[in-house]
């Protein structure tokens, strides 16, 4: 099974599960801790958490001045809500054994993580670290999603939406793809670090919300300037750094696999950035700063599912392809006229799909050699496509139900006066940049 499993975490974890009850945990057959691997996983956890303020900066710089705090609060709110939910029930759902016919996982011992208090995983890492590392993914995913409907939702409705979304969309998807027994996991779908689970699901769900909620007042007639591109650039820088934890941490090791994941992540990001500014130069004669960071993000998103299975040339091609497709998708969005405010779908959805599909053509020869005889590129391509479709379809449909529900009950879209006044003032009673006014 290791042969098929692009990411062993789930399998390893499952083994840990069966062998461990809280009482058995002090016994001699417990795997030992490897301090090096543990160190890297601790760091990866910190790095993925760094992506949350990074994303807050990236998004916060792109919205109008009056909405900067409201937009950053989407990321910080996700830290609070998903941070709590993950330890309460998220980990139990995502990484417990199959329940409800495999729709989700469930292990009551994982509630409040009490059952893993002494558990060391077969990867020689305390399970707490793995649970925390995974928890950061559960935080960043709805924070990414929020970019699609920036500048027009109520904070209260947003928090309820992402809480439900985490439970009903993220946890099951995570279970399907990464946990032993998850049906996509068993099929051999390759999603190293979250192309489907994180980016495609966030992008698609964001798109659905954006379409349901409608455009911001005045869009696209009134131009909406980024309030702080400088902050957006810095945020992108932090995202790149944090992504090393995101991808290389997903190896749940500190060795060759980790190094490979880090190397391809770096290469894809640089290639994506370069490609984007070349495209811009050809299209408009000018390279923009938003362009270079969009290219970085596109490259990083595309390499995410592929970080364990491609080599440097493949990574660079994925980065370039992501830049091309995302650039095209955003042009198309502008044509179609819907308002995905910060291009959550245009970058994360499209980039994730590009990565998940195209990776099939750049598989590392040694990986291919390790597959059993029945393996064929065509079949892998189908499996990948299935992963994408399941993710798009499931996330899309459930999100639609949720967004309608939340909007009709407690309210999601802000009122027109609130929107004109800006979220910071009307929802939070604050101003982002007091420095603008003499005081």
């Amino acid at each position, binding site marked *: 099974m290791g042969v098929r499993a692009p990411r062993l975490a789930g399998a390893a974890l499952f083994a840990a599960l069966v062998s461990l009850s809280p009482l058995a945990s002090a016994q001699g057959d417990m795997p030992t801790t490897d301090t090096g691997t543990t160190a890297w996983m601790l760091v990866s956890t910190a790095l993925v958490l760094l992506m949350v303020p990074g994303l807050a900066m990236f998004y916060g710089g792109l919205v109008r001045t009056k909405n900067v705090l409201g937009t950053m609060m989407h990321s910080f709110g996700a830290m609070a809500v998903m941070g709590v939910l993950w330890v309460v029930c998220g980990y139990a759902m995502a990484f417990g054994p199959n329940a409800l016919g495999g729709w989700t996982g469930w292990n009551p011992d994982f509630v409040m993580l009490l059952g893993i208090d002494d558990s060391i995983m077969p990867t020689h890492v305390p399970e707490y670290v793995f649970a925390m590392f995974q928890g950061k993914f559960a935080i960043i995913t709805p924070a990414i999603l929020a970019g699609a409907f920036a500048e027009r939702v109520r904070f209260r409705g947003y928090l309820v939406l992402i809480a439900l979304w985490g439970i009903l969309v993220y946890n099951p998807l995570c279970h399907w793809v990464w946990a032993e027994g998850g049906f996509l996991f068993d099929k051999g779908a390759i999603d190293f670090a979250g192309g489907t689970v994180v980016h495609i699901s966030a992008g698609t769900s964001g798109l659905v919300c954006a379409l349901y909620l409608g455009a911001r*007042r005045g869009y696209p007639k009134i131009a909406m300037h980024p309030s702080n591109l400088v902050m957006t650039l810095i945020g992108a820088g932090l995202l790149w750094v944090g992504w090393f934890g995101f991808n290389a941490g997903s190896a749940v090791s500190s060795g060759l696999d980790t190094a490979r994941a880090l190397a391809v992540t770096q290469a894809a990001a640089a290639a994506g950035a370069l490609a984007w500014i070349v495209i811009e130069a050809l299209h408009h004669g000018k390279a923009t700063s938003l362009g270079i960071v969009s290219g970085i993000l596109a490259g990083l998103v595309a390499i995410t599912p592929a970080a364990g299975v491609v080599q440097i040339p493949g990574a660079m091609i994925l980065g370039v392809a992501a830049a091309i497709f995302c650039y095209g998708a955003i042009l198309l969005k502008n044509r179609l006229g819907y308002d995905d405010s910060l291009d959550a779908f245009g970058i994360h959805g499209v980039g994730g799909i590009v990565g998940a599909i195209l990776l099939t053509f750049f598989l590392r020869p040694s990986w291919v050699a390790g597959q059993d005889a029945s393996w064929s590129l065509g079949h892998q391509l189908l499996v990948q496509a299935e992963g994408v479709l399941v993710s798009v379809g499931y996330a899309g449909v459930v999100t639609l139900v949720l967004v309608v529900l939340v909007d009709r009950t407690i309210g999601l879209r802000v009122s027109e006066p609130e929107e004109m006044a*800006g979220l910071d*003032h009307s929802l939070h009673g*604050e*101003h982002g940049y007091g420095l603008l006014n003499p005081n």
Partner: protein
Amino acid sequence: MKMVTAIIEPAKLDKVREALIRAEITRLTVSRVSGHGRQASDPQLYRGMVVVPDLNPKVRLDIACNDEFVEPCIDAICEAAREEDNSLGDGKIFVTHLEEVIRIRTHERGGKAI
């Protein structure tokens, strides 16, 4: 020619601009200012405390217009900038006399340069 200077709530900027456009007044200059009027509203929150700032953020509009446009301009602003609940802080309009206007590009002067 007159210079109409309005100090309004930042939240009303979009609405006022739209009202002015309906009154066929499109050219204007906008700036951020802070103000203190009779208003004691616009409270902000700071760690559990309601804070009434001494100087509130406001937006200033400067609109140079020919004399016949002054009243429509004032009406448009008043209409759009007023809170429904008749609260303080809606702002104020000042009118001054403009002796000359010059369009830099063409050196045109006077009413047709507005």
